[in-house]
């Protein structure tokens, strides 16, 4: 293996090193290094070590050799309609994500991100799993969420989604979650299972309410200018291995979620499973209406062959 790679990519993500995604990124890096005989090297930075997401995306757009694990809400800053992927109950399972990624609309968005904004999407099949509400009282219907201050990322799609589902969204930095909950400055969060373990949230929260309101799909992005500097076969290896690692970790997380559920219970939390999903689904409609995403959803569902 060459110790002097021609190409080095520094890859940043905001998740903890214990999150399954981190191992998957490292596996991706190993596979790419093996197939390019060490000529294309990926260095992985967890916990946003390299910087905040917006800054990294700004950097990669300028052709700096960095990459970022991101989501549809963030891509929605560039192409407004893309945010729909982050709307309540838009996707049901990882299989639908694979189908979605092959639709003409999504292909067009990806081309537009590359040509107009300098963002190259390597793949979008890394699924973190379903987001649930985590609170200190059981939640079964949207009414139960009324008046609860739930921490949510600040982007409009997140805020409107949580509002539509009945709660009061609070924009709070990721790092303030624990102390905010401990001091009752917020009443709850909406996250995936793994986050509870990563941040010891079982110390400050009592219930995981399985609302499954958003299937958290992540995008792997690098700079288009940097991507075009790579030889064609390296480009192919980079994308293929990214997709393969994403498929692997998505499966892995489905297995690990069961483990996480047991661990969360062992640590004293109660899992509420009898949530009224139909009522939440109905309530979620308001987010599509308020953000003008009904057309986008209809078109994507048609292209995916749903309904």
């Amino acid at each position, binding site marked *: 293996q060459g110790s002097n790679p021609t190409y080095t990519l520094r890859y940043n993500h905001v998740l903890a090193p214990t999150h399954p995604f981190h191992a998957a990124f490292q596996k991706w890096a190993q596979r790419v290094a093996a197939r390019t005989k060490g000529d294309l090297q990926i260095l992985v930075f967890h916990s946003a070590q390299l910087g*905040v997401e917006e800054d990294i995306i*700004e950097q990669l757009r300028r052709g700096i050799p960095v990459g970022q694990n991101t989501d549809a809400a963030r891509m929605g800053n560039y192409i407004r309609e893309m945010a729909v992927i982050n709307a309540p109950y838009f996707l049901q399972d990882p299989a639908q994500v694979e189908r979605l990624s092959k639709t003409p609309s999504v292909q067009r968005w990806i081309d537009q991100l590359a040509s107009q904004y300098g963002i190259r999407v390597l793949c979008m099949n890394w699924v973190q799993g379903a987001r649930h509400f985590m609170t200190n009282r059981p939640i079964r219907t949207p009414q139960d969420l009324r008046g609860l201050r739930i921490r949510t990322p600040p982007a409009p799609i997140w805020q409107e989604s949580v509002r539509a589902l009945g709660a009061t969204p609070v924009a709070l930095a990721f*790092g303030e979650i624990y102390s905010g909950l401990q001091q*009752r400055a917020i009443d709850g969060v909406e996250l995936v299972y793994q986050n509870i373990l990563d*941040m010891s949230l079982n110390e400050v929260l009592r219930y995981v309410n399985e609302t499954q309101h958003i299937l958290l799909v992540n995008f792997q992005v690098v700079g288009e200018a940097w991507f075009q500097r790579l030889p064609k076969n390296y480009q192919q290896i980079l994308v293929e291995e990214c997709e393969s690692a994403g498929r692997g970790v998505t499966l892995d997380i489905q297995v690990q979620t069961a483990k996480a559920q047991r661990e969360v219970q062992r640590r004293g939390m109660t899992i509420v499973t009898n949530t009224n999903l139909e009522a939440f689904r109905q309530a979620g409609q308001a987010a599509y209406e308020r953000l003008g995403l009904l057309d986008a959803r209809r078109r994507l569902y048609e292209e995916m062959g749903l309904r």
Partner: protein
Amino acid sequence: MIVSLLIFLGLLLLGMPVVFAIGIAGFVFFLLTPGLQPVMPVQLALSETQNFALLAIPTFILAGNLMNEAGVTRRLVQFATLLTGHLAGGLGQVSVLASTLMGGVSGSAIADASMQARVLGPEMQKRGYTPGFIAALQGFTGLLAVMIPPSIALILYGSIGQVSIGRLFAGGIGIGLLLALVFMLVVAFLAKKRRYPRERASPAPTREIASAFLASFWALIFPLILLITLRGGVFVPSEVGAAACVYALILGSVVYRELGKAGLVRALKQSVADIGMVSFLIACSALIGYAMKWEMWPQKLGQFLAGLQLETTLVVLAVLLALLVLGTVLDSTVMIILTTPILVPAMKALGVDLVHFGVLMALTCAIGLLTPPVGLSMYAVCSIMRCSVAEYLREGWPLLVAVLATILVALLFPPLVTTLPNLLFHR
């Protein structure tokens, strides 16, 4: 990166303001490194000001200046003088006491040190303390804010290293109180040796203390009120500084009626210059910070330490020493973010108590804020007290020795840290 560090040291020796020496050295890295661009420093420096958690620093600086103008300081000093005036170094003892109380509301050593240098500094100077000693005392007692919860450093360590933040907070209390005690002993010793003046010949009569307590009641319960708003779920730690500003404003304009428009403007002007110094430095430090992250220096160090084949306590000692050395140039927050994920698994494998280690690590990293050549807290207090770093070192080294001794004691006797968390949390 080596080139940048050499440039930084060179410019530092030439007497260039530290903020520009850091900025220029960092900028050179972006010029020399293939793949990077010279526009990035702009983005990175700006990004520091867009971090909500860092707003605790300017708001606490403003709160300190407002309290000066509001008459809070004067009352606290009067009361403290009555209470400890008969001791040698009474105002020094007050500084330690005040930091212990403020530790319960402030999570940032820089904010606490800046505020107290501003609040207590002028009064101490009037009583004959040298600016160098005042700067050092306020800087080092600021460490109490890191140990006594809430603590930004412990929250960072706990959330990255997957260690219970509740236990870490409980662990910080023990070493925090020990540190306060040690500081009081050092102040008493130095006061005797350096002949810092007594405020009065004999202890004040109880009646006098009681009436002074009533006169300065609102000023004295200031930390308590902040604590209530924090515990009561009104504010998160980053917001408490702003709450302190509002409280000082109400106290000065409604209760004491000492804060007029002129005083308010004076406090704001003072704060703008203070913040322009401290926060601009934090912004420019981001360039060097990024350079180190880009070259993965902290990770490489972590791997090296994991490779040492030594006894557990010795490894922890070696790690703390390394952090101490690293802290002379790196920012403490950056160090915690970068090394926690490497050090925690290594410590876990060695069987070290992660709460014990985390508390020691947070304190050691925070010392980096006070040691030259780069120490943000040190620069802040030296700037406020208008003293040189040399003077600060000459007058303040016993405090550094005291903190290091405390860490060593806590390292050798883990129950000092772990008793309270084990008492409060099961398992």
